[in-house]
């Protein structure tokens, strides 16, 4: 029941993020999304008695729910991001598009859900959140929300890893975290240069 609740929360925060037109709000929703993911990882890890997943759950909470949102906010203050980020897709189209995507992915993942052991619904939710994060990347013109879309995609994949496979090997998950940190470093450099190009 608890897992169901948090998986709902995961999807809900992502959908709300799709309608957000303010950068800081978007960062907040991303942080909530990661929070739900981290708690999910902890709960699933506890129920499977998988120590590796507990560690990655804690890492998710620390890095994704607190660290990265904080860094993004810091970047946005340092490099003066555009904070009014109106989605390119108008709301009344999004209202139709998002349920369409959800229905499509739910049915798309139906054959897969029969093959995965454990709770199959989670796979459907993670696949649909993958598509929704793609939509999040597509519907914004500015760079910062695109990055958040990419990060949410990472979250969706992580969720898939937790739910479909019962946790990937520890080494891989830590490697993914390492790459995420690398991405932040590269982003910092890119934003740095943005200033130089402008001035």
């Amino acid at each position: 029941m608890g897992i169901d609740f948090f998986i709902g929360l995961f999807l809900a925060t992502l959908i709300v993020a799709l309608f957000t037109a303010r950068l800081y709000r978007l960062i907040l929703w991303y942080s909530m999304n990661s929070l739900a993911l981290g708690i999910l990882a902890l709960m699933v890890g506890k129920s499977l008695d998988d120590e590796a997943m507990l560690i990655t759950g804690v890492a998710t909470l620390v890095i994704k729910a607190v660290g990265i949102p904080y860094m993004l906010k810091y970047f946005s203050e340092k490099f003066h991001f555009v904070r009014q980020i109106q989605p390119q897709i108008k709301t009344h189209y999004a209202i139709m598009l998002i349920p369409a995507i959800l229905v499509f992915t739910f049915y798309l993942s139906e054959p897969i859900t029969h093959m995965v052991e454990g709770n199959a619904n989670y796979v459907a939710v993670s696949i649909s959140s993958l598509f929704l994060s793609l939509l999040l990347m597509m519907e914004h013109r500015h760079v910062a929300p695109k990055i958040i879309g990419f990060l949410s995609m990472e979250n969706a994949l992580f969720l898939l890893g937790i739910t479909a496979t019962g946790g990937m090997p520890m080494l891989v998950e830590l490697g993914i975290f390492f790459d995420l940190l690398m991405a932040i470093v590269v982003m910092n450099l890119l934003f740095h240069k943005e200033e130089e190009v402008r001035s």
Partner: protein
Amino acid sequence: MMATLLILPAFAMFLVSFSKHKKAKYLLTVTSFAILLPIVKLFWLPKPYAIWGEYLVADKLDTYILLVSSLVGIGVTLALLTLDLHVKISAKSYRRFYRFFATFWVGLIFSILANHMGIYWIGLELATLSTVYMIKTNHSLAAHKEAWNYMIVGAIAISLVLFGIILMYASAKPILGEDAMRFDLLLQKAQDIPSPFLFEMGFAISTVGMFVKMGFFPMNLWLANIERASFYPVAALFSGILESAVIVGFFRFSEIAMKVNYAHLFSFIFVYALLTIFIVAFLLYRAKDFMRLFSLSGVEHMALIALFWVSGGTFAALLHFGAHAFLKPALFLSTGVLESQGKYHIAGALKGYVGKRGKLFWFTVSLFLLAIISLPPSPMFFSEIYGFGAMIDMAKKSDHILAMIGAILLLLLLLSIIFYRFVTVYQSMKYEGETVEKRVYTSEILALLLFAVCLGFLMTPASFAFLRSIV
């Protein structure tokens, strides 16, 4: 021990790149040569050789690919010595370029040698992220935009690969447990995978991710635009090294997928590659500058390699891969000189070379240009013959021989469009436009000669025998 030796040159390069000394860049080139030592050692060792437990394992395929991409890396570092004489680059950016080049190299060593889907992905992601900055060393608005573009599209592509990997892992986990990430075990147990549909789905998704990263349909132009906006060594790295890492992943995944369901795999890749070549041929016909020309031709060759590989022509695919990996970076590196009159000056690009170095330069470049369109002495000619032969052999076993011959004729038609375009470009370079003197530096000649020697070596019977023994 072996892992340390392999990483050491890149690590040394990373450290040396912090030095502000003027001569430091020569040291960088010397360190890059050091990587040949462990690779040559790898060739002598019995295969498969475990470099780092079960995670990094050297077998014949990845030793070959590692050798090829390291040679390309050495050639690029040679050409990098005179980068600042062709383009405007600040000393700081230049050092940073090396720093990220070193990270890139580490990522690639990991992903080429990986015997583990997860490690493969991590290496690839690391390499992708570090190239973002290399694109950015060019201080132009276009390069800045394209760096972001690369970051975003590359991230999507690479996430698709991870998505596929997770599905494949999930499909094999019931029989293999945590070892379901290992390529060798997956290959052994491919027929026992309990849910082949899930595996095929994962394979298809990660293949689409890899293909997008190499510029296949529908993202045919994004790589070309990025290579246009960045400095020429970046394009050489992309075509010679990064694409090797991607294609090695494709080789490994498709080896497993072949055992799971060969018919599905073949029709999927066949249609995808044909579609890509169809579109690329016409895009190539409209290309107006060297970068886009070479980049699109790279997409075409990658599609051919994928096609040959899944048709069972593994020898042809590997030969084609080697030839392409040497030819294309050489051409990209020579654009630094060819474009010294400006970006869109194709006419007269091969005129105005004086002195020994100049003569040698235009001679090798024309050879490379003619080799890339598979004129007979080129290894590409042989690989295409073998590849088409393999496709026909494969079709003979089924009832689709006529369809296959039709497809090959279509392919030949498309290739002849590309051939025609390249010949036109070559003639325009040689016989049109006015003669303006261009400068060629020793390091570039050395790099080109290195590639030429490698190509020659690829054509020897010994290396043919080695390639045949790989799979």
